[in-house]
């Protein structure tokens, strides 16, 4: 391998030839037979060149970036193949560096985790995510165990390894030699994607002495809290430590101690912002940043050549991950100082310059020079980064120093850039709103299912709220806190239909919470955005931005983070895990697959070049936003689909090998994929919609288990993706080809995917590169989505937050702080209304007319089509609602009156309800036929106006009328299709509901239901409230019944006022409800009884305490009139003659019967009670047990009443006969 590089350095071959050679292209090699000869002899090694180059560069930079963040290279350990000193010792410990994963990595993570945990409320990482992150890393360590079958031989084990090796660089992993300094490495640490790209070389005996080398892929110790409940350990995402970790833990412990020592020695220093170009003070004092000087670059030519080859590889997409390489280059650019080595001084012999024997980077100057050289080649990519990164780059003094020209271009790019990326967190969760169409009783199989789901919805949100409150608290555990409640809830979902309801809720809530607002104006709930904008959404936005700054999540995943579930996604992930319900998972997968297919197939508007600029700008904003919404939704759904689909196959154990693997492969290849992603990918590529399909597919695949890439089905997908990747050469910008930022997005997500641990590392380099360009055998549409500028920086950074790591590196350089790996990286997910997602254009009819309509739209602006489809969709739907509210409502009214008739003719029973219903159906359903005519008329009437209102004024008349007609046709089609299929069922349902309402209402108290009078027109509703009156009367009753204090009583005026108020209240019906009226009626009867028995304690002179007879009579008169005129419900007048109330008279001495007699007479006279009724009551009174004298008087009374009904005066006299001593009393009456 190195031979190639050396040939290059000796200028035997040109850079272009080398790149051609690597790319596998034979073209051009004829030009220089010498080159061809050199290279063709090396042909078998071609595939190894790029990994070799990447590892070579990493290795060379080891002295500059001693504790640098990992810049893993996906290279199968070819770094060993270096020409170097003969007989050099096996490169044991150096392996650690070449893995670019120094032990301090773990250490810094350990130290920082608590900080991260204390981060803001909306921090990206939750403890849960740490769990996920950890397990991935563990999976990796598992992978590095011996016997990782398919891996190529590498490192010292490689037979092809030349005998020459470079002398050992310092063992940077050795704690004694290089104790971790107080300063944490610049750049991201945290949960960096473990680089199992370059695995530790097989262990030989002597190497076992150098312990630290094994550290690099192991999980940070802090991430393996023993407090994890054991349940988690059985899960793929909450793994225990893999075997062999014990020694790691010990090492970690040592490192941690070392670290804390260091921390004590250097208490948190602060950093002044360095002046431009001045050396930066360093934390530990002894180590200062070296200034970089272009004049002191040691071997320009050599560096230039390597930079050129390297750049070309990047440009040709021969490296797996563009942004990873950029990250590496940025690291070189911002390297602080060279590590001086004790034992290895590279003395330069004159001849060594053009060979690889001397180190490539001999000083900081070399590094910076190299970096700037590479960056110059990639200006285009740089200029498309976000504005913040551009600013930092343009202000970088080293860049200015080494290439003023590049700096100038960057500055210009910065000034022209509008790519402000704002990673605002969404506001707090909103619930999925209740929609009667999908959520009411009619959508459930039984009342029980309906009510169960009602409860489940509430439990779900309760759990969600609790999670929101607690998930950031240290020590809180999802499973412990919520697991059992979730499982109990899932246990209630018995019916399959309930599962689908719940999954719908779950998925909607997921989309609602986990999409982020694509910048300002993002919406959460249907109507919310408008209100927000009315109320100053600007302010809200500012507030969020401020909050964003204050609570920036400090953790980041480095340039290649493992797949995670940041923020709210963690809730849904944990919910799925805790629920551990296979029914739920299956329904969820079904639902996710369906939604993915729906969104992936969404006819996204096509850009038409004919549009004028101003207009298209507006359109484009909307279209870009729509695209972003769809893309982000798809990614989210696909991520969860991948998560659930591969959940059963992921485990802590290392991937199987040998026969076991074969049998697993044989088995798994029989299993159909959960979603036919291969077909979707092919279709997407054919339709030039890769920019939509690939990003979500990557999310889906990122959760694949180790076996997946080995399956033929998925292998085919990876092959397609690799070919796509290679074809996305950024420098080629042709008309009709993919847009630059679209490519950049695809490169970023694909590069990320290729770094996922489960994707075999050799996949990228082994795959036979396409010798010819990536040609899709397509009849591609002229303007596929790929060729439209649908991606902007906001979307790019939202999808690939790890690109933000670049900015972070630069920012750290500026701040001079190499402290926390605080990040700019925040995952956001725009929100939108789900309805806008679901607004799929209706499938249009077949036939010539439909074709004509399609053709009509073809040359019209897309907004026209959208408008027409939208109008048709809405009018069609409104039409159905209108029919429901008019025709069906009329029929229901008819049904009600028919029912009344039936009830009258058939008497109280009304016959069998089912039979009744059938009669009604048979009479009413035929009327449903009118619906179609009415619907047609409605659509005809409503659609044109709507289309006219929505289209531009200037739309040509012919276009307008065609559009109107198509809208009418589509709306009619939609409405009539629905109506003809459903109208009968609808009528039946509504009639049934009405009938059961009527029959229910028929029930207990027909009188209360009777015709009720309202207030009079002039009523101002100032009458006393019924509740007040009941409670006032109750007070009087309780006073009368006692016990009472001696000074308690009622004034006669108060009594009159009370009865007067009762009249007012009964006349004003505004606040009166039937139960209150019933109680008022009862209380008034009780009051009357107390009046009759003279039992109401009256305030006044002590001797008196009794109501005057006249007053009592007046009050009774008032009550009688209320009973007669004002009560609309029944008044229980028979209570007046209940034994209890009549018995009240027994207590009075002397007994006075006149009022009772008066009352009875009036009752009959006013027609309030019949004589017979009273007679019956009196009759039953005799049966009660009374004192003898009382019984006699009672008998006399009833005889009198019965004997002389129409002669009131004699009755009173008759009373006198019974009670001769009461003459005076009678005289008063």
């Amino acid at each position, binding site marked *: 391998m190195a031979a190639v590089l050396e040939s290059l350095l000796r200028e035997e071959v040109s850079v272009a030839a080398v790149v051609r050679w690597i790319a596998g292209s034979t073209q051009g090699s004829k030009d220089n037979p010498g080159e061809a000869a050199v290279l063709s002899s090396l042909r078998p090694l071609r595939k190894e060149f790029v990994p070799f180059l990447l590892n070579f560069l990493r290795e060379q930079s080891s002295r500059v970036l001693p504790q640098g963040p990992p810049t893993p290279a996906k290279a199968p350990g070819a770094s060993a193949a270096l020409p170097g000193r003969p007989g050099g010792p096996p490169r044991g410990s150096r392996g650690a560096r070449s893995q670019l994963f120094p032990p301090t990595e773990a250490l810094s993570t350990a130290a920082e985790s608590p900080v991260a945990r204390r981060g803001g409320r909306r921090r990206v990482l939750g403890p849960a995510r740490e769990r996920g992150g950890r397990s991935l890393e563990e999976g990796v360590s598992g992978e590095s165990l011996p016997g990782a079958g398919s891996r190529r031989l590498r490192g010292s084990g490689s037979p092809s390894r030349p005998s020459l090796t470079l002398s050992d660089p310092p063992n940077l992993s050795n704690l004694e030699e290089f104790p971790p300094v107080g300063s944490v490495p610049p750049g991201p640490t945290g949960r960096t994607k473990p680089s199992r790209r370059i695995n530790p070389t097989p262990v030989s005996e002597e190497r076992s002495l150098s312990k630290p080398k094994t550290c690099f892929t192991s999980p940070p110790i802090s991430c393996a809290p023993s407090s994890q409940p054991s349940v988690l350990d059985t899960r793929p995402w909450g793994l225990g430590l893999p075997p062999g970790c014990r020694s790691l833990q010990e090492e970690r412990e040592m490192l941690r101690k070392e670290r804390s020592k260091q921390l004590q020695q250097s208490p948190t220093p602060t950093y002044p912002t360095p002046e431009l170009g001045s050396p930066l003070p360093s934390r530990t004092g002894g180590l200062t940043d070296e200034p970089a000087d272009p004049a002191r670059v040691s071997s320009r030519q050599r560096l230039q050549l390597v930079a050129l080859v390297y750049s070309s590889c990047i440009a040709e997409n021969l490296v797996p991950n563009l942004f990873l390489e950029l990250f590496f280059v940025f690291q070189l650019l911002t390297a602080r100082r060279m590590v001086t080595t004790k034992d290895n001084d590279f003395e330069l012999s004159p001849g060594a310059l053009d060979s690889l024997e001397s180190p490539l980077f001999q000083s900081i100057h070399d590094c910076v020079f190299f970096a700037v050289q590479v960056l110059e080649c990639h200006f285009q990519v740089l200029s498309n980064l976000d504005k913040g990164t551009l600013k930092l780059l343009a202000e970088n003094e080293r860049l200015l120093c080494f290439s003023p020209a590049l700096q100038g271009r960057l500055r210009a790019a910065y000034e022209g850039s509008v790519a402000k990326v704002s990673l605002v967190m969404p506001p707090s969760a909103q619930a999925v709103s209740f929609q*009667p169409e999908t959520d009411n009783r009619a959508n459930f199989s039984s009342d029980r299912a309906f009510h169960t789901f*009602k409860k489940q919805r509430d439990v779900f949100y309760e759990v969600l709220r609790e999670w929101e409150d607690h998930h950031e608290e240290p020590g809180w555990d999802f499973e412990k806190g919520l697991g059992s409640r979730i499982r109990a809830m899932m246990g209630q979902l018995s019916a399959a239909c309930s599962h689908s309801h719940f999954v719908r809720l779950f998925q909607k809530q997921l989309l609602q919470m986990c999409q982020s607002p694509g910048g300002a104006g993002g919406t959460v709930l249907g109507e919310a955005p408008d209100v927000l904008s009315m109320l100053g959404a600007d302010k809200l936005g500012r507030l969020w931005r401020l909050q964003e700054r204050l609570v920036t999540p400090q953790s980041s995943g480095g340039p290649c983070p493992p797949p995670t579930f940041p923020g709210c996604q963690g809730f849904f992930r944990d919910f799925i895990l805790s629920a551990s319900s296979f029914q739920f998972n299956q329904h969820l997968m079904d639902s996710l697959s369906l939604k993915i297919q729906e969104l992936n197939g969404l006819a996204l508007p096509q850009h038409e070049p004919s549009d004028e600029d101003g207009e298209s700008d507006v359109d484009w904003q909307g279209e870009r936003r729509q695209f972003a919404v769809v893309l982000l939704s798809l990614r989210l759904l696909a991520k969860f689909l991948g998560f659930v689909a591969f959940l059963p196959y992921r485990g802590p154990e290392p991937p199987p090998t040998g026969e076991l693997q074969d049998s697993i492969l044989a088995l798994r290849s029989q299993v159909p994929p959960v979603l036919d992603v291969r077909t979707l990918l092919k279709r997407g590529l054919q339709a030039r919609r890769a920019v939509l399909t690939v990003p979500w597919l990557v999310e889906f695949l990122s959760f694949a288990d180790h076996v997946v890439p080995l399956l033929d089905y998925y292998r085919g997908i990876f092959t397609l993706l690799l070919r796509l990747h290679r074809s996305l050469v950024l420098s080629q910008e042709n008309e009709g080809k993919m847009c630059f930022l679209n490519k950049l997005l695809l490169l970023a997500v694909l590069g990320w995917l290729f770094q996922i641990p489960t994707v075999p590392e050799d996949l990228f380099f082994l795959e036979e590169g396409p010798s010819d360009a990536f040609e899709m055998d397509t009849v591609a549409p002229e303007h596929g989505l790929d060729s439209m500028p649908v991606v902007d920086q906001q979307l790019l950074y939202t999808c690939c937050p790890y690109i933000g790591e670049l900015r972070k590196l630069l920012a750290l350089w500026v701040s001079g702080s190499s402290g926390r790996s605080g990040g700019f990286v925040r995952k956001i997910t725009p929100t939108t209304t789900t309805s806008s997602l679901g607004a799929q254009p209706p499938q249009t009819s077949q036939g010539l007319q439909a074709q004509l309509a399609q053709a009509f739209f073809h040359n019209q602006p897309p907004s026209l089509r959208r408008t027409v489809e939208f109008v048709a969709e809405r009018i069609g739907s409104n039409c159905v609602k209108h029919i429901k509210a008019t025709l069906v409502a009329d029929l229901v009214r008819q049904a009600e009156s028919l029912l009344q008739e039936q009830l009258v003719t058939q008497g109280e029973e009304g016959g069998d309800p089912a039979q009744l219903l059938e009669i009604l159906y048979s009479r009413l359903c035929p009327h449903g036929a009118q619906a179609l005519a009415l619907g047609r008329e409605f659509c005809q009437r409503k659609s044109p106006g709507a289309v006219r209102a929505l289209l531009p004024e200037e739309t040509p008349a012919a276009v307008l009328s065609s559009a109107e007609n198509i809208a009418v046709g589509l709306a009619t089609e939609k409405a009539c299709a629905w109506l003809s299929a459903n109208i009968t069922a609808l009528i039946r349902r509504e009639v049934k509901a009405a009938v059961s309402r009527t029959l229910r209402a028929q029930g207990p108290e027909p009188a209360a239901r009777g015709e009720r009078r309202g207030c009079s027109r002039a009523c101002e509703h100032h009458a006393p409230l019924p509740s007040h009156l009941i409670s006032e009367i109750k007070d009087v009753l309780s006073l009368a019944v006692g016990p009472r204090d001696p000074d308690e009583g009622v004034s006669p005026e108060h009594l009159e006022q009370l009865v007067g108020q009762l009249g007012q209240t009964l006349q004003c019906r505004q606040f009166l409800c039937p139960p209150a009226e019933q109680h008022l009626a009862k209380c008034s009867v009780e009051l009357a009884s107390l009046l009759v028995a003279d039992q109401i304690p009256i305030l006044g002179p002590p001797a008196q305490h009794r109501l005057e007879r006249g007053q009592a009579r007046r009050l009774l008169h008032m009550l009688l009139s209320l009973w007669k005129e004002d009560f609309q419900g029944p008044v229980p007048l028979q209570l007046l003659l209940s034994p209890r109330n009549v018995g009240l008279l027994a207590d009075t001495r002397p007994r006075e019967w006149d009022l009772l007699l008066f009352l009875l007479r009036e009752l009959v006279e006013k027609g309030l009670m019949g004589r017979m009724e009273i007679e019956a009551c009196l009759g039953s009174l005799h049966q009660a047990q009374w004192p003898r004298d009382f019984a006699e008087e009672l008998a006399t009374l009833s005889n009198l009443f019965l004997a002389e009904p129409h002669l009131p005066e004699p009755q009173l006299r008759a009373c006198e006969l019974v009670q001769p001593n009461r003459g005076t009393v009678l005289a008063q009456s």
Partner: protein
Amino acid sequence: MILTKAQYDEIAQCLVSVPPTRQSLRKLKQRFPSQSQATLLSIFSQEYQKHIKRTHAKHHTSEAIESYYQRYLNGVVKNGAAPVLLDLANEVDYAPSLMARLILERFLQEHEETPPSKTVINSMLRDPSQIPDGVLANQVYQCIVNDCCYGPLVDCIKHAIGHEHEVLLRDMLLEKNLSFLDEDQLRAKGYDKTPDFILQVPVAVEGHIIHWIESKASFGDECSHHAYLHDQFWSYWNRFGPGLVIYWYGFIQELDCNRERGILLKACFPTNIVTLCHSVA
């Protein structure tokens, strides 16, 4: 009438072991003249109910019932006109209406062949005339009219108050021209949980979006508020988004802590309502 937790506790402190009678209420009003009667009654009633809930079980042991019944029998034998049952209830610190129910149940068990159904007992409590024993009927009636926290009359008053405030709220909404769907309309549409009113167009109150309004004609204390949150308010939020609860008789200030989360508390109809403007700016 928004009270701080401390103010509320002061009132609640005065209510420990106070019988639910007319007289107690009068004293309470004298003790806290600045508070409205309705608020005091509501607090009293809720505190008393909490107390009863705590002690309910001990009155329902068969020993306790037997002992109460014997005391009742002995009492009425001595003097049927005396408030035997009411005094007994006050003495053992139990609600008179509930004591009446207890004794009535026991009485019927003794005199009827089949154990009395709930419906029969409720009906007799509503109309004591139906009680076969005249003395017991009077005793029961006395308990019911003298109980200001329990019993059919009190239930009716509470129901009426709730209804009246809903009507009041509806009037206010109409007056403000805010269109809404009421509970009945929502039920007819098949909603599974129905607040008193759902606004067809949301408004903002004190910077908070309001989709629905629930009227509560009671004082919002911790206990009832938490129960309402769990059974109603959060359920409304889960379906309709943020909303407003009006506790007409006030609430404990500290409970109004879910504003940001979408539950706003007020003690009256809000004055500054921001509506969606339809005019083109």
